[in-house]
């Protein structure tokens, strides 16, 4: 096990720069998720940690050692790919034992380690099968088994669940987390799915266009997003944003949207001349008397909660409430916003105010 550090790392393909000076410190045993929309550079960064991509600038350290020029095989890492990357001509046992075989370990030792890993992942009955005889979930488990068998310093996962169906994804998510709690190996996990990031990570790194937007614990990112991008990316359904200004009202301040809707702001907010983006999460809006009346356009009941798509004057807003709503589209409901949970961002820079 080891800590991993990424310091001022840059990646260029010719003149095209795709990673712009990224800094991440990963503690020993930590589960870190790199998350961001496709093309943000998260997979490239992971492949640079693995040694599959060269590093154009900066340093990557594993266990305190600079590994920029160390071959992947000498970095003591294990990687799990999105499409599993199993060797099609080898059985499950041969796939899992291959790294040890390359190291020239005795056959009995390989067999014992493979058996132990197979037990952890419930693969004992599949050891003699070939990859093409396995289902997607089983293949993913074999890929993880191959990683476990090596007992590496760092696990790297590159979107490992993206090829699985929704239900299996949830199961495997739990399995990977359990595995981490059991083995306590430092893990770097790449995904574009913010739910995966929120549920699995000790620490999330949100990336966009080769920059780190924010690093923090899942709930930290949820409660105090550093900018509009993180606020919109983390959380589902996504946060509502309304453009407008903060004006002085009744001895305090209030938000007035471009369309004239007045919304409450956290206590102590000062009026501002520059335009702001007003953010409120759908789950922090309630249907209750005393709220601002909004016209319902669409209702989406999911059983556990109801999503309301409504209009507040000219501004569209989305609320998610626990109760079941008897109102119909076209009718009005009172929407009560909790001012303490409002996020304000500078409209130009996107930074939190």
């Amino acid at each position, binding site marked *: 096990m080891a800590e991993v550090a990424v310091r001022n790392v840059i990646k260029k393909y010719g003149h095209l720069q795709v990673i712009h000076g990224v800094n991440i410190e990963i503690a020993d045993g930590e589960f870190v998720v790199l998350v961001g929309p496709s093309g943000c550079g998260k997979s490239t960064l992971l492949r640079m940690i*693995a*040694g*599959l991509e060269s590093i154009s600038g900066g340093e990557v350290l594993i266990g305190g050692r600079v590994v920029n020029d160390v*071959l*992947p*095989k000498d*970095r003591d*890492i*294990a*990687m799990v*790919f999105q*499409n*599993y*990357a*199993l*060797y*099609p*001509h080898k*059985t499950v046992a041969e796939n899992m034992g*291959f*790294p040890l075989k*390359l*190291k020239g370990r005795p056959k009995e030792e390989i067999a014992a380690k493979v058996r132990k890993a197979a037990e952890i992942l419930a693969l004992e009955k599949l050891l*003699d*099968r*070939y990859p093409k005889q396995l289902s997607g979930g089983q293949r993913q488990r074999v890929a993880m088994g*191959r990683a476990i068998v*090596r007992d590496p310093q760092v696990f790297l996962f590159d979107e490992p669940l993206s090829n699985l169906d929704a239900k299996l994804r949830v199961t495997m998510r739990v399995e990977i987390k359990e595995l981490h709690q059991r083995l306590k190996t430092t893990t770097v996990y790449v995904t574009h799915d913010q739910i995966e990031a929120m549920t699995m990570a000790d620490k999330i790194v949100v990336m966009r266009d080769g920059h780190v937007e924010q690093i923090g614990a899942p709930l930290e990112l949820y409660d105090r997003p550093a900018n509009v991008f993180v606020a919109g990316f983390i959380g589902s359904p996504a946060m509502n944003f309304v453009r407008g200004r903060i004006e002085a009202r009744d001895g305090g301040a209030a938000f007035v949207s471009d369309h004239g809707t007045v919304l409450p702001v956290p206590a102590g907010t000062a009026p501002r001349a520059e335009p702001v983006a007003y953010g409120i999460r759908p789950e922090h809006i309630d249907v209750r008397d005393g709220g601002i009346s909004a016209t319902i356009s669409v209702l989406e009941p999911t059983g556990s909660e109801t999503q309301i798509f409504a209009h507040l004057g000219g501004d569209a807003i989305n609320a998610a409430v626990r109760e079941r709503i008897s109102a119909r589209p076209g009718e009005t409901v009172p929407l009560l916003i909790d001012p303490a949970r409002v996020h304000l961002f500078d409209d130009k820079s996107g930074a939190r105010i």
Partner: protein
Amino acid sequence: MRSNTVGWLMLAPTIAILGIFGILPFIYVLYVAFHQWNPFGANPDMVYNGANNFRRLVFDGEFLFSIGVTIKFAFFAVLSEIALGYLLAQLFMREFPGRGLFRTIHTLPLIVAPIVVGSVWRLMTTPSIGIIPYFLKSWFGYDLNIGRDAGAAFTLTVLMDIWHWTPLVTLTLLAALLSLPKEPFEQAQIDGANRWQIFWHITLPMIRPAILATVFIRLMDALRTVDEVWMLTSGGPGAATRYVGLHIWKIVFPKTDYGYGAAISVIVLYLTLVMCWLLYVALVAPRQKKQEAE
């Protein structure tokens, strides 16, 4: 039922052509092989003589020698072509300036007719006028004379075959390499494999079907080589490069010993089948059995 009839009708032209040009001649050759037939011999008529032609070839030193030298030729030619073709395919997988141009140029030998290849090589190697003996002599002091030196003649026929057919191997292996997913190779790098181990444990098993198909095609071709070698050495010096195809030609055309020539053809076909089958058994069957057992 109707679609079945339509299917057969669609296949009919192919079957007819195959029957007329493939199966009927084969049956005729088989028929002739059991006869004594030399139109310009003492008795020009076709006379049934049982298995005598086959009995004769078992003790025919010239024939046995030609079989041996053909197998030797096929072995060296095919092995070198596969090795060289693989290296070239790996080279073409990499990015380098002028790759597209080089890829195109290197396939040009394939479109040259064997008889032309033979003539060009003949021109280049003829003592006193060829460019190759000239430079070998002036640079290395080596006197190349394919009319006298049996070893040199054999080597040249192998080199000519390599020059002509390696591009085919390169093309098929390149296609196979390009179709491979890249993740297992990255995984192998992480798993700790060096270049040789990646080649042996990952690349080779994954392109094995393509290699086998190529070996079969090239082996069958090499075993029936006639025109190129005929142009280059005419089977000489002596009978040093008289491969079995040339041997049959000599018996059937100048000697007009049709019955004996037919018998040799049948045996050569049989030998080719046996060799391919042995190769298949040795390389493919054990793996399949292993997979089926599980």
